[in-house]
């Protein structure tokens, strides 16, 4: 074996007792003494460390580097910002793959292309040939000077964080990059990998530093993993291997790029690519691929077969080359491209409570190139040693969307409906429902500490009014210009509700300090949707005949930094924001956060972003919020830069705090305010939209569009019951606001201090008392949020789990979000939050139950404050009650 090449870590592998094999001309570890199965399992549960220095690493520099990359790769290299990476394919004229690869942009003027070891020479020769047309491009083969390691698995982040000397980990999403220092040398770090693990890191470092960094990671808890498990891991993740799912098949035929499941993510037809090698062939494949996705019965000329995951049901292992037959075994429909037996950890419990047990099992899975008319769920057979083994096409073997674990999805493990419940007479069901409603109300209203920041208990008056007569009526109305913009009602019997709406608008205008309020929207998200729709409407006022254009660029808070759903492309904003032609994704840019406080917007850094992106819409407001929004600062910058931006403040959570104790949005220069009327505001569950403009202002056009896109754009029936209740709530807000707002903010700080004092990890700026809102955010440990929230609920303390800015998503949530507004309304004051904090710490830190003390404690706070009570309105409430 001495003629094979060795990576710089060869000695480490041998010293660890690895079984060495030849791979692509290199002597590499197939497995270490524990074996492939153990290495696979360790990666999925802890962290696996791979020496991937045998792969090729080419650096592109020079003017025209991007043009060449656009020409020779399938993906859109121009979409890469500094600090981003993308999967890509080096393709040939026929739409087949020369190799699959990853392109990294760690630096402004340098692109790093990582290719498979087996194709390194072939790729290099091809790139050099193409380079003849791009003479200004410099390509360096950095494969020998630069080593490459991969660290994958649920503990990988913790291990890596423990060895960083300077710099920080990349943003918690795939393809993000960062520069760090480990063991005294600079390491290029990428959140990429070949295992399907959501917590994944690949690193590029100088050859001389590889051994030291390897040792550091191993002593930090990483397990060395060889090529054997590298293959089982990528198979389970459904990732292609060149020579099996890409390139040339066993019969010597070229595998079309779109036959491979990951092609979609690697291919771009962006106009920014211009003409590129293989474009025409790839486009033909893409056309047919789209038809296949739509189950079009037409001919399959270009993609007669596609690669799909398969699960073997019988007792056999499907291996590469095995024939795949249609059920019944008559017709050959394809062949297995990769397959083996892979291990998995058995889990106990469901959904977020699912835990890995100590038990493992094996399953025979594979990837197969089969007739493109077949779909997941279709039974098939695999020919193994002359016999047909039952199998089935599955959509995937593994999911990476619930970090911190990659979760195997077992075929046939779907819930089957249990036996049907015995029939119950209708009156029995009715009784049960009424009893359950009563029990639930007693539990929440009398026995729990309700600390969910987006929730509030409305007063008895508000609640009663919400179910009085107008609750089930209609009162659609619209401005009619012929009548000097008077509201014309379409229904009869609407005098009362018409008056209520007018009074409500008056109260809300006074509360918000503005001239216009729209009250017909029935939720905060609907309010936001109506505003987005109005903005698009205004953008297209001059041209109603061609396709309306969408908003060109939006500045918002991303969801992981507390931004609300509605402001994300995946939420309401999605239908209204255009695609950025460069990135081919929604044109949304995030507010930057302070480096030392991810909950606080870095207002100063916004200037550069505003100048560069020139957003049409700026959306303030968050659902995880500890500070006021920098509306005033941004307004000043927008004016200075002469931008036509609309400043929208989705006040949602903080609507009940509007005023001198928190912030006054219109005074600071907001154009539009939206909000939920049921969080810190005392109302029923509705929304509102507000603007401060007059008919002679430029912004008036937007206001008219807001009205139109509310009705008839968003509502027909606008839920008159909760509208009536909201008016009472508005009276309460206007009457009690000063005392209430002061108490809420003081209580939040008191809770934060008390929790900190009790040993909990409270987020925010200590110098500011941790919070300037009604919320307190507490960190309980990476991915420990859901469990902590569940245990608190078992003790009658209701909070919700939340992902922090450095966490991948809600399944990996490491924080709890608490709000004091509701309990403030039940009369709690600063000192009362001391015992609350202690009970929370008892549950979360000491694992005890606090249910009985919580129930006892709550009994002191059963009467709602900041509302009209007792003798003031008792008789009138009685009367209403009797009328139901």
């Amino acid at each position, binding site marked *: 074996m001495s003629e094979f090449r060795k990576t710089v870590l060869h000695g480490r592998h041998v010293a660890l007792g690895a*079984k060495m094999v030849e791979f692509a001309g290199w002597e590499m570890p*197939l*497995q270490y003494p524990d*074996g*492939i*199965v*153990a290495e696979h399992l360790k990666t999925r549960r802890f962290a696996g460390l791979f020496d991937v220095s045998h792969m090729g690493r080419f650096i592109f520099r020079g003017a025209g580097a991007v043009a060449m990359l656009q020409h020779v790769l399938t993906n859109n290299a121009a979409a890469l910002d500094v600090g981003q990476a993308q999967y890509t394919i080096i393709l040939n004229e026929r739409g087949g793959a020369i190799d699959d690869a990853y392109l990294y942009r760690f630096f402004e003027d340098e692109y790093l292309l990582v290719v498979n070891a087996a194709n390194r020479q072939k790729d290099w020769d091809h790139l050099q040939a193409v380079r003849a047309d791009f003479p200004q491009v410099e390509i360096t083969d950095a494969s020998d000077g630069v080593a490459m390691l991969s660290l994958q698995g649920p503990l990988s982040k913790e291990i890596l964080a423990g060895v960083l000397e300077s710099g920080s980990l990349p943003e918690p999403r795939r393809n993000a990059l960062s520069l760090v220092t480990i063991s005294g040398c600079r390491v290029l770090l990428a959140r990429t990998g070949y295992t399907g693990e959501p917590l994944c890191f690949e690193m590029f470092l100088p050859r001389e530093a590889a051994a030291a960094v390897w040792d550091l990671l191993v002593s930090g808890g990483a397990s060395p993993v060889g090529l*054997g498990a590298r293959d*089982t891991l990528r198979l389970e993740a459904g990732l292609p291997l060149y020579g099996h799912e890409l390139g040339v098949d066993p019969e010597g035929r070229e595998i079309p790029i779109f036959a491979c499941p990951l092609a979609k993510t690697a291919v771009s037809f962006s106009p920014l690519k211009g003409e590129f090698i293989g474009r025409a062939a790839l486009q033909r494949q893409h056309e047919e691929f789209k038809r296949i996705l739509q189950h079009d019965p037409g001919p399959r000329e270009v993609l007669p077969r596609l690669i799909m995951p398969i699960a073997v049901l019988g*007792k*056999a*292992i499907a*291996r590469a080359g095995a024939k795949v037959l249609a059920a019944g075994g008559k017709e050959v429909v394809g062949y297995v491209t990769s397959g*083996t*037996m*892979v*291990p998995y950890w058995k889990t106990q419990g469901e959904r977020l409570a699912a835990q890995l047990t100590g038990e493992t099992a*094996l399953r*025979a899975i594979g990837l197969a190139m089969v007739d493109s008319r077949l779909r997941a769920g279709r039974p098939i057979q695999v020919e193994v*040693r002359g016999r047909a083994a039952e199998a089935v096409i599955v959509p995937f073997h593994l999911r990476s969307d619930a970090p911190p674990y990659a979760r195997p999805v077992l075929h046939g493990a779907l819930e089957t409906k249990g036996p049907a419940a015995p029939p119950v007479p209708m009156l029995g069901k009715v009784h049960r429902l009424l009893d359950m409603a009563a029990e639930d109300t007693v539990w929440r209203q009398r026995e729990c500490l309700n600390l969910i920041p987006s929730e509030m208990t409305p007063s008895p008056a508000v609640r009663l009014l919400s179910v009085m007569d107008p609750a089930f009526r209609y009162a659609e109305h619209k401005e009619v210009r012929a009548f000097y913009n008077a509201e014309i009602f379409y229904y009869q019997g609407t005098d009362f509700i018409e008056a209520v709406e007018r009074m409500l608008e008056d109260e809300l205008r006074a509360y918000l300090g503005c001239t216009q309020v729209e009250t017909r929207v029935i939720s905060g998200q609907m309010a936001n949707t109506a505003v987005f729709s109005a903005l698009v409407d205004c953008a297209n006022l001059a041209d109603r005949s061609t396709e309306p254009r969408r908003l060109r660029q939006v500045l918002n808070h991303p969801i992981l930094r507390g931004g609300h759903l509605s402001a994300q492309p995946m939420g309401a904003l999605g239908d209204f924001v255009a695609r950025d032609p460069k990135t081919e994704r929604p044109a949304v840019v995030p507010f930057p956060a302070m480096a030392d406080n991810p909950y606080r917007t870095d207002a100063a850094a916004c200037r550069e972003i505003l100048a560069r992106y020139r957003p049409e819409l700026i959306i303030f407001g968050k659902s995880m919020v500890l500070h006021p929004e920098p509306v005033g600062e941004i307004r000043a910058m927008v004016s200075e830069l002469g931008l036509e931006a609309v400043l929208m403040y989705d006040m949602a959570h903080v609507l009940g705090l509007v005023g001198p104790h928190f912030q006054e949005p219109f005074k600071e220069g907001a154009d539009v305010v939206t909000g939920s009327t049921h969080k810190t505001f005392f109302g029923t569950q509705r929304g509102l939209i507000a603007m401060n403009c007059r008919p002679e202002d430029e912004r008036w056009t937007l206001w008219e569009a807001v009205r139109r896109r509310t009705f008839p754009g968003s509502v027909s029936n606008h839920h008159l019951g909760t509208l009536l209740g909201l008016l009472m709530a508005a009276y309460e807000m206007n009457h009690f606001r000063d005392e209430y707002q002061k108490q809420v903010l003081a209580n939040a700080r008191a809770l934060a201090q008390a929790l900190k004092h009790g040993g909990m990890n409270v987020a925010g700026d200590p110098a500011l008392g941790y919070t300037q809102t009604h919320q307190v955010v507490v960190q309980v440990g990476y991915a420990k949020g859901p469990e902590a929230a569940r245990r608190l609920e078992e003790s009658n303390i209701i909070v919700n789990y939340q992902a922090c800015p450095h966490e991948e998503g809600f399944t990996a949530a490491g924080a709890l979000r608490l709000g004091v507004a509701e309990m403030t309304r039940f009369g709690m004051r600063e000192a009362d939050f001391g015992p609350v904090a202690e009970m929370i710490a008892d549950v979360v830190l000491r694992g005890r139950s606090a249910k009985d003390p919580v129930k006892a404690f709550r009994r002191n706070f059963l009467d709602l404050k900041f509302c009209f009570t007792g003798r003031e309105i008792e008789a009138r409430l009685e009367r209403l009650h009797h009328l139901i």
Partner: protein
Amino acid sequence: MVPEDLRYSKTHEWARFDAGANIVTMGITDFAIEQLGDIVFLELPKVGAQVTRETPLGVIESVKAAVDLFAPVMGEVVEINTPLADNLETLSRDPYGQGWMVRIRVAGAGALSGLLTPDEYRKHLEAEGRH
């Protein structure tokens, strides 16, 4: 490990002869198990099957490869170690005891002629460059 009371085939199966019942119990050796690595699948013949030394009587698979199992003797399968397929760790734990695979009825002691003695098997392992 190469137990003294067994006989061996060149393809790394072992055989234990019960003279009283004319039954040969077979399995695979330590060496074979170590070579395979993680054993993930085992297929044994059906009871009643007639086996010879040339035709495979089953399959044992690791993550990377499938390997045929051969009968070390000619005869009829009278018993198979069914639970073994679901407890493959037993193979590496106790390959010559609980890891037995198949029991074959033979005509007589002559059925074992041609199999290697422990010494011969050890030499065979060395000759193939392994130990």
